[in-house]
């Protein structure tokens, strides 16, 4: 080392200043302090110099030296180019307003449909997940194979609950007995409401993990207690504290409010369970339930059993243990392969039924169906988008040539076209979100849902943004990679021509679009045909002006005749009767029937309904043979009327059952008559064999036939005054039978409506697509048309020339769609036993319709092109 060289200064300030000082000042600043240090070392020695050094360094720590130099060219070229791309993209969109509208609008509609369907599917799949024990809750069910047909149900015998609780304590955390959710009157002071609720075992709130707003989940331990949902508590008590208040159920049971729970959300099975009363109260207040419990009635399947399996148990293992319980206690069921099993909560909503072979089915089919439709609609929109952008992009070959000539490299062109298509997708995404927000209320109403946009769900955003990126990249890929590969010389000289087969992919895509659209149209028509077919079915009784009133208080049971006379006296009523179920609902099926000549191995099962003498006249049933119940014959109290199906079901050699004796559980009853089949269950299924017996005690509803000569509101007002007199404790709630009957079509109508909306949208999107393509083709062939016109072509022949291509495509699409639709729809119809057939005219109408729409769409463009003055089209070059 040179002895004249002073020792170098400490290192740390260099590092500090190198980071802090603005780059353009670093050289002079560091040089200065180093030189100063060297001078100090010479003058004062190294130690003193080091001591003062930090002050020197800190003197430079001031904004003046730290602030970075302002660049001379504020925007780097990169963003300038991006700005140019954006500008060109926006100019292109603005220049071709029609294309842009079709492109963005079509894609937005497609995305909106996909989003709605996605939200719907999400809602379906998250059904019941509100309950934290979702994965371990199950419903106990039993299945049997009856006459070769598999059937399963959740009506369970009462003693089974105890059996599961005591003998399988290790497998279950909770076993909850449950009544069916039913309407009951809740009264507090002079406030009375009819509310739906259930009687459940005390563990239920724990099992359902109810969110308690007041009180605790242990509120059902005392039999004289009740837990209310938030909304019921609000209705009964307003803002007062309901805890400890006494509420009366059905005008007979006094119970104390011990808890208030948060309303169960709309997408849970128990959303209508607005109050919970203890199971023990149910047993003690209902004689027939008490009897079933005391006598261990294993044959009375009238209740639900819900259970939560233990943390270490699995559904399969528990199923294996409990499956024999039914046969063990009711040996007669052995020939029907009766089995007890658990249906996990995750299956309740989507797998509600079994086909005759015992395979699960249910709403999951609709989840698949709509998922598929959503996917297809989206696909249609994407196809449009791609078709139009590729078709347009050929017009931009010149631009590509110029850009390349002035120095664009290929990667820049690729990013230009990608950024353009992403811009369009971003516009479409914004528009589709707007559409979804606007359409959600309507959609919720049609689909019977309460879904909202999942603003705060990352999954939602990731999928939306991911999808948009995907669409943008796919749609932009053709222009990006194909156009950017052009040789500028060829393009600019004008020798560039799109290959002969350049339009083939586009044609294929149009065929795909129309195949999907035509299939959807055929499907929609058939769904509506099926609904209409079932609606037109003769139902065997007169539902006009028929209302039902629930008999839920003891007062109504004991005054049948007085009530009837009073009602008749008002003149508003033609007749009144009571029955065990309303005419729109058959909920009781029993075995234990016997008659002369019955095959001893045939275990007959009938629907059983208790009626009164006046039932027939009230509902207007029609006799095929025999006679109605009559007060003139006292022996009619041991008699029954059966429907046609039941008469056939008995398979009698003599033909008619009228006059025969049929025994039910040993009790003999004479068959008085046979009525025409009444559609009480699903209108899509065959009528169930049913017998009607006289029983004034087994009554759950009052049927009233209104006088058709008077207006319904007036009649109802008169009836209400009578009911207030006889049943002051409860509100007068009635249901119109025709409305109840219409509800049976709700599921199918919902699907029909949704499917038709989606089909219309699909057709709309497809039409947008060919509209755009047709105008593009017309524009491309302007010169050709001009020359043809000069040479003498007529408008009609030009119209034919331009429309021909599309007609061919639609014909191909139609011939693919027909067998496809036929295959899927005949599968769908299979599940309805009462079904319409797929007639040829549906296909014919759809085909003609699709062709008509296509021609209309194309004609607009082709006629416009054909009527253009050839002077104009040929002059410009």
């Amino acid at each position, binding site marked *: 080392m040179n002895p004249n*060289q002073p020792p170098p200064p400490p290192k740390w300030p260099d590092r500090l200043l190198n980071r802090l000082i603005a780059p353009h000042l670093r050289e*002079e*600043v560091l*040089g*200065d302090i180093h030189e*100063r240090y060297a001078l100090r070392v010479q003058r004062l020695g190294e130690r003193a110099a080091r001591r003062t050094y930090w002050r020197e360094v800190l003197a*430079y720590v001031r904004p003046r030296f730290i602030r970075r130099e302002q660049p001379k060219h504020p925007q780097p070229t990169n963003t300038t180019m991006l700005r140019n791309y954006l500008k060109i993209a926006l100019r292109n969109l603005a220049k071709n307003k029609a294309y842009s509208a079709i492109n963005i609008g079509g894609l937005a509609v497609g995305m909106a449909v996909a989003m709605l369907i996605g939200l719907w599917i999400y809602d379906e799949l998250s059904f019941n997940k509100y309950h934290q024990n979702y994965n371990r809750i199950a419903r106990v069910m039993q299945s049997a194979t009856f006459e070769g047909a598999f059937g399963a149900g959740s009506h369970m015998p009462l003693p089974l609950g105890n059996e599961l609780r005591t003998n399988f304590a290790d497998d279950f955390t909770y076993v909850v007995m449950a009544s069916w959710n039913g309407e009951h009157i809740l009264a507090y002071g002079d406030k009375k409401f009819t509310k739906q609720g259930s009687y459940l075992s005390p563990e239920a709130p724990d099992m359902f993990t109810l969110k308690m707003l007041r009180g605790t989940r242990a509120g059902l331990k005392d039999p004289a207690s009740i837990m209310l949902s938030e909304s019921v508590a609000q209705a009964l008590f307003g803002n007062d504290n309901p805890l400890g208040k006494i509420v009366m159920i059905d005008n007979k049971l006094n119970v104390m409010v011990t808890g208030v729970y948060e309303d169960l959300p709309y997408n849970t099975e128990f959303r209508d369970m607005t109050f919970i009363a203890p199971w023990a109260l149910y047993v003690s207040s209902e004689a027939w339930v008490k009897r079933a419990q005391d006598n261990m009635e294993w044959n009375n399947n009238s209740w639900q059993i819900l259970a939560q399996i233990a943390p270490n148990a699995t559904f399969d293992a528990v199923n294996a243990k409990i499956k024999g319980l039914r046969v063990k206690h009711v040996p007669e069921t052995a020939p029907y392969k009766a089995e007890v099993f658990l249906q996990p909560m995750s299956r309740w909503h989507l797998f509600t039924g079994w086909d005759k072979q015992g395979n699960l089915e249910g709403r999951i089919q609709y989840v698949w169906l709509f998922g598929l439709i959503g996917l297809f609609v989206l696909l249609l929109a994407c196809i449009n988008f791609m078709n139009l952008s590729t078709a347009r992009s050929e017009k931009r070959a010149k631009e590509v040539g110029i850009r390349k000539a002035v120095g664009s490299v290929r990667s820049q062109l690729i990013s230009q076209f990608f950024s353009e298509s992403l811009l369009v997708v971003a516009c479409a995404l914004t528009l589709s979100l707007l559409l979804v927000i606007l359409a959600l209320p309507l959609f919720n109403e049609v689909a019977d849902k309460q879904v909202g946009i999942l603003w705060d769900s990352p999954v939602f955003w990731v999928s939306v943004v991911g999808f948009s990126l995907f669409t943008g990249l796919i749609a932009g890929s053709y222009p990006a990679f194909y156009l950017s590969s052009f040789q500028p010389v060829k393009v600019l000289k004008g020798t560039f021509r799109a290959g002969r087969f350049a339009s083939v992919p586009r044609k294929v895509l149009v065929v795909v679009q129309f195949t999907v659209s035509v299939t959807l149209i055929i499907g929609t028509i058939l769904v509506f045909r099926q609904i209409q077919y079932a609606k037109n079915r003769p139902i065997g009784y007169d539902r006009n002006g028929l209302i039902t009133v629930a008999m839920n208080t003891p007062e109504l049971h004991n005054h049948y005749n007085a009530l009837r006379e009073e009602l008749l006296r008002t003149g508003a009523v033609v007749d009144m009767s009571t029955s065990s179920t309303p005419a729109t609902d058959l909920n009781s099926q029993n075995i234990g029937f016997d008659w002369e000549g019955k095959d001893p191995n045939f275990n007959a099962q009938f629907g059983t309904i208790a009626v009164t003498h006046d039932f027939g006249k009230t509902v207007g049933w029609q006799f095929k043979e025999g006679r109605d119940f009559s007060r003139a014959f006292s022996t009619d109290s041991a008699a029954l009327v059966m429907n046609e199906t039941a008469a056939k079901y008995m398979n009698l050699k003599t033909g008619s059952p009228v006059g025969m004796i049929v025994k039910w559980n040993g009790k003999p009853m004479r068959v008085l008559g046979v009525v025409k089949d009444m559609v009480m269950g699903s209108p899509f299924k065959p009528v169930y064999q049913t017998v009607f017996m006289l029983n004034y005690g087994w009554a759950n509803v009052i049927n009233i036939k209104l006088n058709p000569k008077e207006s319904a509101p007036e009649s109802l007002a008169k009836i209400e005054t009578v009911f207030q007199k006889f049943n002051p404790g409860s509100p007068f709630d009635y249901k119109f039978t025709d409305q109840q009957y219409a509800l049976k079509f709700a599921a199918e109508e919902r699907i029909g409506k949704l499917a038709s909306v989606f089909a219309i949208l699909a057709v709309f999107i497809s039409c947008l697509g060919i509209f755009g393509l047709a105008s593009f083709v017309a524009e491309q062939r302007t010169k050709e048309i001009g020359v043809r016109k000069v040479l003498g072509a007529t408008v009609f022949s030009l119209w034919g020339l331009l429309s021909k291509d599309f007609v061919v495509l639609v014909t191909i699409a139609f011939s693919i769609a027909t067998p496809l639709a036929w295959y899927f729809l005949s599968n769908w119809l299979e599940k309805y036993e009462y079904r319409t057939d797929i007639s040829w005219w549906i296909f014919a109408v759809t085909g003609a319709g699709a062709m008509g729409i296509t021609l209309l769409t194309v004609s607009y463009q082709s006629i416009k092109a054909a009527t253009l003055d050839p002077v104009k089209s040929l002059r410009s070059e």
Partner: protein
Amino acid sequence: MRRSDLGEFEEVVLLAVAVLSPRAYSVVIAEELERETGQTVSTGAVHAALQRLEQKGYLRSELGEATPERGGRRKRLFTVTALGGRVLSEVRSVRNRLWDRIIPQTILKWS
């Protein structure tokens, strides 16, 4: 011209540049001022003042040669501009006029 444009330290630095010209840069100016005033003057403070003066147009600068003790870094050399010169002389004449008007007895009392 507003007088407040030139702070006291700035004035001294400007003068020092004039004195040391054409070899004036922050280190020698700081050393010079230390010698003249007997107080520690950091290079950073001088450098900042130089930049301010340059912004005001009283100085101009260019990069000079590198030396070994600077670690091979170049120095920034400052020279007084015509404007700077005028400002300096104006400040001086104001001072001189005021000095001249002080009665001699007063000065005697101080010393």
